[in-house]
């Protein structure tokens, strides 16, 4: 009985976490990707390439570099298609993990990596019409890298906690803890008088 209760709790935690239902049946879509089915890969590209591009250009800034990194992401995924693990998650998490790795090593200078968010890209996309969003982006860019990364993946790019955990190569609990810490820091940063942007007020507690 304790084992059943433990399994039920695990199941409940997965549901609460918005994660997979741990289906034992093989996923045909995942099998098609592993078999390198061309139609499946084309469909995957059409579905995920825009999101990957937004993630990469938010970090590197250059449209040409972003295009190249996204293409290399799919090439790497194609090359290692057999290693794709069906965890009941869409392959988006897997692709984001590859794109994250390629972006981190892109034009790397010693220990310097591309920032988690480039303000100029956000400004160009917003067109100056939404100063609150730009101020919020500036605050995110000032966060520590790990905090900014989890906020970007979870709330800007819309990955679930499980997908973010796969992309970040960590556990779901770590993602939950990190997102709580990051949101608190972001709130504190926005509430600080010296750095509070004029156009953005932190939400009331």
């Amino acid at each position, binding site marked *: 009985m304790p084992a059943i209760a433990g399994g039920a709790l695990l199941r409940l935690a997965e549901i609460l976490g918005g994660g997979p239902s741990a289906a034992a049946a093989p996923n045909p879509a995942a099998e098609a990707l592993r078999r390198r089915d061309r139609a499946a890969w084309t469909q995957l590209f059409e579905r995920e390439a825009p999101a990957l591009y937004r993630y990469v250009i938010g970090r590197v800034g250059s449209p040409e570099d972003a295009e190249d990194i996204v293409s290399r992401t799919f090439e790497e995924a194609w090359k290692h298609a057999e290693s794709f693990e069906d965890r009941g998650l869409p392959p988006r998490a897997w692709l984001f993990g590859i794109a994250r790795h390629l972006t981190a090593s892109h034009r790397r200078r010693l220990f310097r990596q591309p920032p988690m968010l480039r303000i100029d890209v956000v400004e160009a996309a917003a067109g100056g019409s939404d100063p609150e969003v730009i101020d919020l982006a500036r605050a995110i860019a000032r966060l520590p890298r790990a905090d900014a990364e989890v906020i970007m993946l979870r709330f800007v790019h819309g990955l679930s906690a499980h997908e973010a955990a796969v992309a970040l190569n960590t556990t779901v609990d770590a993602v939950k803890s990190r997102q709580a810490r990051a949101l608190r820091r972001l*709130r504190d940063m926005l509430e600080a008088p010296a750095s509070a942007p004029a156009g953005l007020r932190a*939400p009331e507690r």
Partner: protein
Amino acid sequence: MDEFAQQLHEALVGAGDRPPGTEVAALVRLARQCERIVLPGPTTEQVARMRRRLLERTGDGRGRTWPLVDWLGFGPQPRPLAQRLAAGLAVAAIAFSGASAAAGTTPWDAAVRAGEILVDAARNLRPGGDPAPGEPTATVTPTPTAGATAGGTAEPTPTPDPTAEGDDGGQRGRGSEASGGDRERTPEPGDDRRSD
């Protein structure tokens, strides 16, 4: 993981069975504000280029033809030096085989000819070098000054006249006629000096 992080996560995914606290609600609103950050997507041309690149990569759907092409150096992947050298030798062997089949010569003959061409070019392009054995020197020319200094006239160089006909079968040229034909020549004082 602490309880607050779990509560916040439940509130973020809308799965909590209890009303979120004040701080949790504030952080959820802050997370919702982050969703308003918009990043630019790819243009239609960029999507087309990336799709074409993926389709080229996927090839026939299995990618079986690409490893050899990549190995030979026609793919996008960088390769180690040893592999590049081996691929270069393989490509050269294929090219030599094709050339020998088309020209009817063996690769060895072609290599020897190429070497000869290089040696000849090096000899011809050598500025001011020693002439090759058997090659006439341009600086040594017969001069008529020996006879002029002795007061006589230098004999022109006998050249065969192809139009001359005679007992000698056309071997006698104009120079012989100008110098008196078959007459024996009288020795002159300058001849002694020339002989010296």
